[in-house]
């Protein structure tokens, strides 16, 4: 039934590495081949992902009624789908109709993700056509101090985990710069994203890199910094390639360089790669690594805002914090602050991961409950088995039991319930999970990734693994449970940074909610003293 039209049909296929991990490149190639075989002219655009990862590879086709979607599409089915009218938007195969009307997407409030999956990530023209640079233009029309106050007013808090108010941090850096009579300051983007269950930084970088560049230039202008660094983990080579190219394009357009948009303000951006160390996501460790050293944690104070990169006042912000900034400047801090609840303002990009039926990226104002995220958007487990636990906030976050999800996503409310939001990752586990082995993994991970500078973290985690092994082997379980509690206290109180300080979160929450998993699994118990 295909009625060949005049011009080429635009088809969008993600180039995001998650989509590619399940065959998007093969689908793109198959589409080209099928179009040629059927005598159709197509314009293939590779985008970021819409974040509906369970539907990847997700193909979108231009129609008079807008973009319509198909997914998951298998390369081997492409020829048949094209024969059945995919290029004309005919509802065939895994068709979802108009993409903007898919409830999962429609019910989100996308600011950070507004362009991701929509535009060609490396097209500056696409960026401009979809609202890019509005925030930077407005910022450059204000005094730097006014930009800082706009961010303060927005209520934006750091998305890297600690939730510190971004505007206050910027004000501290700006004032330090002034107090020191000018001189060098820096803006550093923390794109180390080491937490399991998180991938939003990567998706935004691969899908809308100019948004980060814009956010960093605004930050630089606000605090008087002319140089910025992006510290990116080595596990993200595709994101690195996209950002490298985007920086070059931004230079060509005058969005970076010594005269940004003709304002007279200059800003240079450098990309630095990590080398496989989780601890380098901790900000002082990241600064050490940026200076070319071992990524050992620095004692605080002094805080990086005062003594940061190369000893200079430095803004360190997570990638999502910085990417939130252009929208805040474009629409005003008050509009941003109108979203959210209590002291958690604006939108958060949640990441649904692990054993989840509909995994991906959900951006919505703070306050949505964990239950709505896990069961509403997430659709429960992928395995179809009963949900047992959700780890919220990465490897240093607590396990929340399936019946405890009626909690609003609000920094303070979660803290009061013994949980934390972290970088916004939610990892689902079904009823086959053994929580003692997850607790053991938390300790093992800490032992493996500790920078080694402080004893409670370095030695405590190694002991933690041994003690959990003894508990599950049935060796003096009562004494060893007490010992595990003491070890957790020691790590919480004595560690130099939150690596050792928060590792007890998953361990204690697993123990509290799932004590039965910590009983001996080898009956009969080995004789005392045997490890």
């Amino acid at each position: 039934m295909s009625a060949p039209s005049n011009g080429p049909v635009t088809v969008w296929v993600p180039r995001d590495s998650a989509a590619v991990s399940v065959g998007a490149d093969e689908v793109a190639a198959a589409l080209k081949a099928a179009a040629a075989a059927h005598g159709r002219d197509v314009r293939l655009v590779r985008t970021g992902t819409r974040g509906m990862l369970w539907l990847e590879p997700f193909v979108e086709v231009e129609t008079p009624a807008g973009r319509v979607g198909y997914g998951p599409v298998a390369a081997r089915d492409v020829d048949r789908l094209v024969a059945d009218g995919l290029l004309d938007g005919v509802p065939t195969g895994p068709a979802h109709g108009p993409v903007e009307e898919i409830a999962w997407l429609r019910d989100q409030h996308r600011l950070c993700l507004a362009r991701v999956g929509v535009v060609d990530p490396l097209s500056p023209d696409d960026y401009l056509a979809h609202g890019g640079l509005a925030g930077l233009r407005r910022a450059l029309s204000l005094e730097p101090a006014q930009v800082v106050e706009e961010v303060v007013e927005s209520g934006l808090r750091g998305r890297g985990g600690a939730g510190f108010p971004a505007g206050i941090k910027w004000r501290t850096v700006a004032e330090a710069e002034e107090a020191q009579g000018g001189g060098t300051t820096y803006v550093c983007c923390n794109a180390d994203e080491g937490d399991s269950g998180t991938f939003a930084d990567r998706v935004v970088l691969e899908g809308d890199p100019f948004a980060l560049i814009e956010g960093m230039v605004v930050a630089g202008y606000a605090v008087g910094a002319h140089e910025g660094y992006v510290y990116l983990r080595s596990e993200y080579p595709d994101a690195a390639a996209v950002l490298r190219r985007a920086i070059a394009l931004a230079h060509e357009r005058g969005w970076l360089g010594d005269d940004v948009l003709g304002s007279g303000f200059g800003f240079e951006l450098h990309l630095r790669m990590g080398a496989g160390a989780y601890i380098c996501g901790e900000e002082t460790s990241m600064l050490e690594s940026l200076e070319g050293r071992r990524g050992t944690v620095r004692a605080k104070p002094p805080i990086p805002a005062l003594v940061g990169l190369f000893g200079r006042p430095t803004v360190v912000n997570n990638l999502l914090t910085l990417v939130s900034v252009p929208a805040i400047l474009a629409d005003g801090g008050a509009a941003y602050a109108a979203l959210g609840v209590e002291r958690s303002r604006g939108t958060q990009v949640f990441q649904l991961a692990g054993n989840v039926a509909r995994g991906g990226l959900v951006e919505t104002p703070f306050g949505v409950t964990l239950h709505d995220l896990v069961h509403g958007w997430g659709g429960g487990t992928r395995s179809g088995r009963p949900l047992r636990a959700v780890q919220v906030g990465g490897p240093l976050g607590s396990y929340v039991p399936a019946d405890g999800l009626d909690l609003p996503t609000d920094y303070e409310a979660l803290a009061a319930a013994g949980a934390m939001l972290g970088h916004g990752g939610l990892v689902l586990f079904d009823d086959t999970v053994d929580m003692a082995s997850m607790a053991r993994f938390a300790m093992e991970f800490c032992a493996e990734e500790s920078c080694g500078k402080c004893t409670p973290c370095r030695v405590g985690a190694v002991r933690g693994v041994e003690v959990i092994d003894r508990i599950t082997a049935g060796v003096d379980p009562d004494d060893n449970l007490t010992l595990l509690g003491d070890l957790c206290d020691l790590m919480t109180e004595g560690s130099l940074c939150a690596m050792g300080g928060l590792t007890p979160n998953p361990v204690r929450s697993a123990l509290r909610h799932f004590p039965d998993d910590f009983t001996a699994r080898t009956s009969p118990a080995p004789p005392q003293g045997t490890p």
Partner: protein
Amino acid sequence: MVDEHRHEPGNLLVVLLDLQQRLGHLDPALVPVVAHELNLSRAEVHGVITFYRDLRTTPPAPVRVRLCRAEACASVGAEALVSDVGERLGARLGGTTPDGQVSLEEVFCLGNCALGPSGQVDGRVHGRLDADRVLDLVARARP
């Protein structure tokens, strides 16, 4: 080579990553050379090489398999995948196949946590892996 980065502040890690990219690994004989060129002590250079998991002092196997063991992948069977693949390849985690052609490594999160279990074969990320698929990818990648 070092000259390219000589004027970048804090350039040691950048230089080492670049050298490894070109040479495949960082031979211990490079340590005094790099130290001299960058005006650092050998201990500093050695210290950085030992700190970062990516930096290696021996050549990598021709085919590298890295399987994610972090929580999100664990929730969909990563531990079983690691042990199955290890058994079928005849390699333990951190080791290689008996012929030394394929290495099996662990990695903690590849940013593909909604489509696990995830892993990399020769640098390319693959999602929703099972042991058959890993073995198939390895067979294709073998020299």
